[in-house]
């Protein structure tokens, strides 16, 4: 039952949309891609997610906290969103970018508009202040 026949070209049905937005880490990824043309690199993205979840600054996120998130993004959340055509993962560059179904899912997210999520969105859309 894990993944039925996702159709990358079709509009997603509601079950698929809810799967896409059904985890805070996946919503975070979607919020980072609100801005057209934006690309996010996985290591930095993982640090941002950890900072959001642990309510600390990115600079205070430990390597282990960052890696824990990075592993979960790489091993489950990104492939799940990619299978739905909601994001595209470019392995050679280790980045995620918008994909064919990003807009549809983000439209649903906008209407879901919980207060907590709008703060998550603001956090997700800020740029990593830690330049490496």
């Amino acid at each position, binding site marked *: 039952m*894990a993944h039925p026949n996702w159709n990358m070209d079709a509009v997603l049905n509601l079950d698929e949309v809810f799967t896409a937005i059904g985890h805070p880490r996946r919503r975070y990824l979607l919020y980072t891609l609100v801005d057209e043309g934006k690309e996010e690199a996985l290591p930095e993205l993982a640090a941002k997610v950890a900072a959001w979840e642990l309510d600390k600054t990115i600079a205070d996120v430990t390597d282990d906290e960052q*890696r824990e998130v990075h592993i*979960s993004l790489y091993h*489950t959340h*990104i492939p*799940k969103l990619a*299978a739905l055509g909601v994001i595209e993962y470019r*392995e050679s560059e280790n980045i995620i970018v918008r994909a064919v179904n990003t807009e549809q899912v983000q439209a649903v997210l906008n209407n879901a508009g919980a207060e907590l999520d709008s703060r998550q969105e603001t956090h997700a859309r800020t740029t990593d202040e830690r330049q490496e």
Partner: protein
Amino acid sequence: MKDKNENSDHEASAESADNTLEDNWMENEPQEKIDDNRWVQVNQAHYDPDTDRELVTAVVRAVAEAKGVDPLDGSEIPPLYESIDVEILEDTFYSTSQPNIRDTERGIYSFQYCEHKVVLRTDGWIFVYEPR
């Protein structure tokens, strides 16, 4: 060949008769005997849904450690999602809203992931096996 005495799986670890696994898990080397002899246990790890974060990370780390590879090296250890959606198991086995599921009945779930067999047990133990 099925082991007919399925409930006695941890008797193998010596005198620790009735279930003191919870208390002693650090001292004991837990085992989960699986019902054929094609596999040998090579690693185990404990996942605590109350304090650890995502199950996916715990599973990937246990397998990567068994293989001696970096959990983020996709050429050695492909995304777990390609084998199984562990998010479903996380909800089924380790739901923090129904913690008694973990205590009343011991269940196991096994699957194969990059030439290894992985067994998840409701008490949080993760076992990794490689082919003999």
